[in-house]
């Protein structure tokens, strides 16, 4: 790199524009590749975007804070997107009302098992206390989980990472797991996925089946209401 190229890089790498553009560019590319590979669960666009961008930041010695100044515009939209979940919930209110009891049961079962099993397994494997606090809300959408972590004395940035990993894991394992236990009801599959693996799971569910996607969105929305109540109540018991 000669002197003037370097000056240009120094200028651009400090502007939010570069990192915002890169985030969307890498995501669109990962999304296209996922479509080309017939939505193979291992080609999850979020998972691959994250490590590609992480590598670019490492190679260019860009601090995360500088990156986030650009990426924050995308991150900000998580709040409005959470509010927007009211729309599919409203659109399917009749179907939702018909299976209200199965959904309520699956919501409570999924939310409690997700939180309790993660905390207990990690605790048994020697994961330190402060990480466990940020692990508890891992099944809800990232904005909500960060809020819970903040309120319960956890680390919001760590909670976000754990949420993302959970979503990617759920999106990858759901299809083989459900086929193995021979559950074909797309309402049940989608709903359980939304409860356990939030938005990344929901994005996956829409790739498989419209009904699964709709119920996944509802599961994610309802768990966004339940887990914030569960974590402060159950966490002291689990860590006791």
């Amino acid at each position, binding site marked *: 790199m000669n002197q003037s190229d370097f000056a240009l890089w120094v200028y651009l790498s400090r502007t939010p524009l570069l990192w915002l553009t890169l985030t*969307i560019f890498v995501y669109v590319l990962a999304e296209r590749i996922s479509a080309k590979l017939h939505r193979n669960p291992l080609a999850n666009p979020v998972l691959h975007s994250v490590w590609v961008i992480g590598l670019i930041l490492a190679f260019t010695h860009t601090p995360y804070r500088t990156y986030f100044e650009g990426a924050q515009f*995308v991150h900000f939209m998580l*709040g409005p997107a959470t509010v*927007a979940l009211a729309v599919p*919930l409203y659109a399917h209110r009749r179907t939702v009302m018909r299976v209200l009891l199965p959904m309520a049961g*699956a919501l409570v079962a999924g939310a409690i098992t997700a939180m309790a099993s*993660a905390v207990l397994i990690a605790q048994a494997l020697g994961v330190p206390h402060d990480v466990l606090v940020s*692990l508890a809300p891992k099944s809800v959408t990232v904005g909500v989980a960060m809020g819970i972590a903040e309120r319960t004395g956890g680390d919001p940035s760590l909670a976000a990472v754990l949420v993302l990993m959970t979503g990617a894991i759920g999106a990858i394992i759901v299809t083989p797991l459900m086929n193995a236990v021979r559950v074909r009801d797309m309402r*049940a599959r989608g709903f359980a996925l939304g409860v356990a693996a939030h938005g990344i799971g929901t994005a996956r569910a829409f790739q498989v089946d419209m009904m699964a996607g709709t119920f996944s969105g509802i599961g994610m929305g309802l768990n966004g209401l339940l887990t914030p109540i569960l974590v402060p109540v159950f966490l002291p018991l689990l860590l006791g």
Partner: protein
Amino acid sequence: MLVSLELILLCQLLGEALVHALGVPLPGPVIGMALLLVLLLMRDTLTPVLPHEVGDGTLEKTSNGLLANLSLMFIPAGVGVVQRLDLVVSHGPAILIALIVSTAIALLAGVAVFRLLARLVGEET
């Protein structure tokens, strides 16, 4: 689209305000979601006082547009993993095992209870 986006932001803002004023243990956007749901449920009676974007499908289009790009919005927070590489190195396998097993358990518990109760209310497919 602007009015719909503003309505969504307004719900979120009200949600945040309520959370802070009343000390509710819920994140602001979640209260915002509940508020938007109430608004939608009441829109037929409120039609004369609501902007037309609430009733003509514009709000739906804006919301679905947001939700279609939900995956993208996870990326900035996810890239935060670069700050926590120390933790990934020291506890990565344990955390990964905990996440994989607990996600599988939660999925199985969710579908099992859903199927069981669906049979109970005669909604089996």
